């Protein structure tokens, strides 16, 4: 009996170590079971895996995900979208969107994030993606003006199943009132449209000012969907494309 109990506890220790990053956390509260956070959370929060050989070499994100391996799952090892966002000093977000389709396509539909699901706070928001870069397979795709402020369809030079977008997302941040000075909310959703509604979307948000993530499209008790630790948070469980909207709480930097 003793041996069984010991074995169960040992298995529990290993399981806990693997699954702990999935545990629910409250806003910006460091774990106090131990006095210090784990330095390797950046990799622990996002299960490491081999990046897609077609996609990884093109990544040049200027944040903590630059040198980390892309997580396995939607967008990399299986059909879906991997969206990685990081706040910029002016409240805009730098976004990388990696798409793996179930079948190769010859056209790509893009549209600004629809924020209706994000709540009334964003009713006046006018999201615009600028400096949009698109790669389909290993071929660059021209985006008129490098800007997406309305729905557009792009023709691809050759059928592609792996697509990557890099852009700056603006007009999506609102200051929280009343709240602490500098506290702001932003709504983020993928740019890629015209894909199956149930295509899974994995969302990662990184940055030292990021505090929490909310999934307004989920049921009330599941809306606190942030896992991981700042500066690397992600959404607990993947969202289907039709409901892939998140609200990110973060602090705006003081003007210099």
């Amino acid at each position, binding site marked *: 009996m003793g041996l069984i109990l010991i074995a169960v506890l040992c298995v529990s220790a290993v399981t806990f170590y693997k699954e702990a990053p999935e545990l629910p956390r409250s806003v910006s509260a460091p*774990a106090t079971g*131990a006095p210090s956070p784990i*330095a390797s959370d950046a990799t622990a929060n996002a299960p490491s895996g081999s990046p897609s050989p077609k996609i990884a070499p093109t990544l040049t994100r200027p944040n903590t995900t630059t040198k980390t391996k892309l997580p396995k799952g939607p967008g990399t090892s299986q059909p879906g979208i991997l969206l990685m966002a990081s706040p910029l000093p002016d409240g805009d977000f730098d976004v990388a969107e990696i798409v793996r389709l179930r079948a190769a396509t010859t056209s790509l539909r893009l549209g600004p994030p629809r924020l209706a699901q994000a709540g009334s706070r964003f009713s006046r928001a006018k999201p615009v993606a600028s400096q949009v870069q698109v790669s389909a397979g290993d071929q660059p795709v021209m985006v008129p003006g490098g800007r997406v402020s309305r729905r557009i369809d792009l023709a691809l030079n050759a059928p592609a199943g792996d697509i990557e977008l890099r852009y700056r997302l603006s007009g999506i941040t609102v200051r929280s009132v009343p709240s602490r000075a500098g506290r702001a909310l932003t709504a983020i959703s993928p740019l890629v449209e015209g894909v199956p509604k149930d295509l899974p979307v994995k969302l990662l948000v990184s940055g030292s000012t990021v505090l929490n993530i909310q999934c307004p499209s989920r049921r009330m008790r599941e809306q606190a969907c942030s896992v991981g630790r700042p500066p690397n948070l992600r959404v607990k469980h993947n969202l289907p494309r039709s409901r892939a909207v998140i609200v990110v709480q973060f602090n705006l930097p003081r003007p210099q």
Partner: protein
Amino acid sequence: MTLNQDLMDLALGANRVLTYGGYVLLAGTLTFWSVVWPDGRRNRRLVVLAVAGTAAMIIGTLAGPAIQLILGGRLLGDVVTPLGGAAQFARLAALIAAVFFLPDIVKASVVGWRRAVALTLVVFLAGTMVAQSNAIGGHWEVAKIAATGLHVLATCAWLGGLVALAAVLIPGENLMELDQLIPRFSKVAQLSVVTLVITGIVHALAVAGGISKLATSRYGLVLLIKVMIFGLMLLMGNHGRKYAIRAAFRQLHQQPDVPARSGGVSALAVAMGAELCIAFVILSTTALLVMVAPHP
């Protein structure tokens, strides 16, 4: 029901003292058997110390997260880190092993495989303490882990040995053993104290981030208090050791009708009792240090 932050800190601090105390009793007694007195496993008081230490550690390990979850109303992800939580499960496994296999360990002299098992258990428990400590993360992580590991091991060898020695000697029995026990324990204690001083300095500097930061922080202030108490305890320990040697000498070499024995033993009891009180204060100060330590 949620407690306010001050009460939470108090409850968590008390729980840390319970866990550290349990560790000192269990790991210290196992070390005492393994290194100082292998035949001491026949002493019922030492077995009681080991059992009490196991119970205290189990309660402390379970109560830490429970206090924060139930009374603090916090989420599990806030309460434990992946490594810290895994360490707590691993510690519980080791404690269950101690519960089930302690009778086997003390069935005969703690030498050979019994000594190996006992010391492995001690090192494993120390490892789980390190995994939960502020040695993990930040700069100089390897140095901090090594320093904390050695510090924790030296603590159990010294404080735990002291408690074990007191449990054996204060009742006034086993004085025949003093001649052998005190020299052996003195060697262990000296090595432990040197280790504690060196690893304590390394760890404090690494955690604080330098001498100037250590000197100007609240962490440094609490550490200074701990060092002063530690120095006081060394003085008391020295007195206790002298009393014990005298008591042993009287017991072995003077006539039974010489009324010195009881006086010697009671003086020893006072000295060791004071020393143990100071040890408790040191553990409490260490629990406080955890709360004021700068995060890496």
